[in-house]
């Protein structure tokens, strides 16, 4: 962005799609493990702490008498997750850990997704203002506030779910039992079928993990990008453009509220289903 002149539409969009990493520049390669997206880390950690704090307050002030509104809301949430967990995971000891994990995942992903409803330029312009007051060029003031629209967060979460599935597979079936299942399910125990079975199992694990993470990422990235494009309508600075911005933004934001909740719910359900599948014997 040249100093003093406004950005073009594609520069505006690209600016809003660039993460803040420790070099201060946009990422050059598609995969670069030396970079950390600091804005993603900050917002996901902060919102995770908020989710944990909210649940802690609810547990701390929980009373057995008539519940207040806040306690009732948290109880509804806990009951929702608990019912889903009971339906899918048939082991009481596993549920002791996985059900709270699913609750945390649901609340955390919901809060991360909720950041998408903030006005597109609100936090980035505050960040640019803060940076320019200490002398940094605001053209490099990148800030993306939706952590789930950064591909690292959903894929990281689904990778953690995969590790949990592997752990429960080995814990429930034993290492030998699980290896036996790797080579003999789904087609049967015959030495010609062993490589086919192994290939199918590996593909199944890979596809489940990748789709689990990328589903959330695709929804949130597309939603965020659409908000940025709608904001470009307002940037035309005409009356019709502004009207279009408000109408389209309202309609898309209302639809996006459904998408946010739905994607958080789906992520939680699939976490439960995949861990539950680790308990099943083929």
């Amino acid at each position, binding site marked *: 962005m040249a100093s003093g002149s406004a950005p073009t539409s*594609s520069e505006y*969009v*690209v600016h809003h*799609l*660039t993460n803040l990493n420790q070099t201060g520049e946009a990422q050059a*390669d*598609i995969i670069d493990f030396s970079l950390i997206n600091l804005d993603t880390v900050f917002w996901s950690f902060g919102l995770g702490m908020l989710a944990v704090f909210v649940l802690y307050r609810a547990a701390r002030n929980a009373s057995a008498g008539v519940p207040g509104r806040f306690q009732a809301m948290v109880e509804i949430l806990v009951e929702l997750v608990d019912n889903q967990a009971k339906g899918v995971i048939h082991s009481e000891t596993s549920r002791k850990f996985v059900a709270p994990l699913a609750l945390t995942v649901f609340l955390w992903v919901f809060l991360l997704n909720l950041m998408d409803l903030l006005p597109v330029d609100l936090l980035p312009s505050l960040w640019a203002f803060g940076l320019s007051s200490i002398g940094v060029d605001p053209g490099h003031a990148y800030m993306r506030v939706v952590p789930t629209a950064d591909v690292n967060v959903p894929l990281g979460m689904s990778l953690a779910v995969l590790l949990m599935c592997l752990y429960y597979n080995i814990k429930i079936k034993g290492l030998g039992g699980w290896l036996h299942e790797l080579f003999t399910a789904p087609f049967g125990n015959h030495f010609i079928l062993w490589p086919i079975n192994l290939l199918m199992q590996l593909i199944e694990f890979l596809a489940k993990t990748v*789709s689990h993470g*990328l*589903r959330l*990422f*695709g*929804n949130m*990235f*597309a939603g965020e*990008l659409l908000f940025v494009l709608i904001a470009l309508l307002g940037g035309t600075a005409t009356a019709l453009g502004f009207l279009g911005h408000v109408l389209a933004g309202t309609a898309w934001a209302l639809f996006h509220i459904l998408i946010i909740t*739905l*994607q958080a*719910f*789906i992520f939680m*359900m699939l976490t439960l289903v995949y861990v539950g599948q680790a308990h099943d014997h083929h």
Partner: protein
Amino acid sequence: MTNVAFVALACGLIIGLGAIGACIGIGLMGGKFIEASARQPELMNELQTKMFLLAGLIDAAFLIGVGIAMMFAFANPFAG
């Protein structure tokens, strides 16, 4: 045709072809849900939860495609 034209065409194809599959899938599933609700209205709430879950699963590949198409439209990693 220039490279920019090819990228634009590719993005359109990714989104359009993906939308065909997703919309037909949602349509079929929604039709089955309404038919099931008409046959057994007492199951409607339980089935609705499952329907929304399935809707998210059906849309998954399409939205992943949209994400990739948007990335090529605005932050083409192969450009330059």
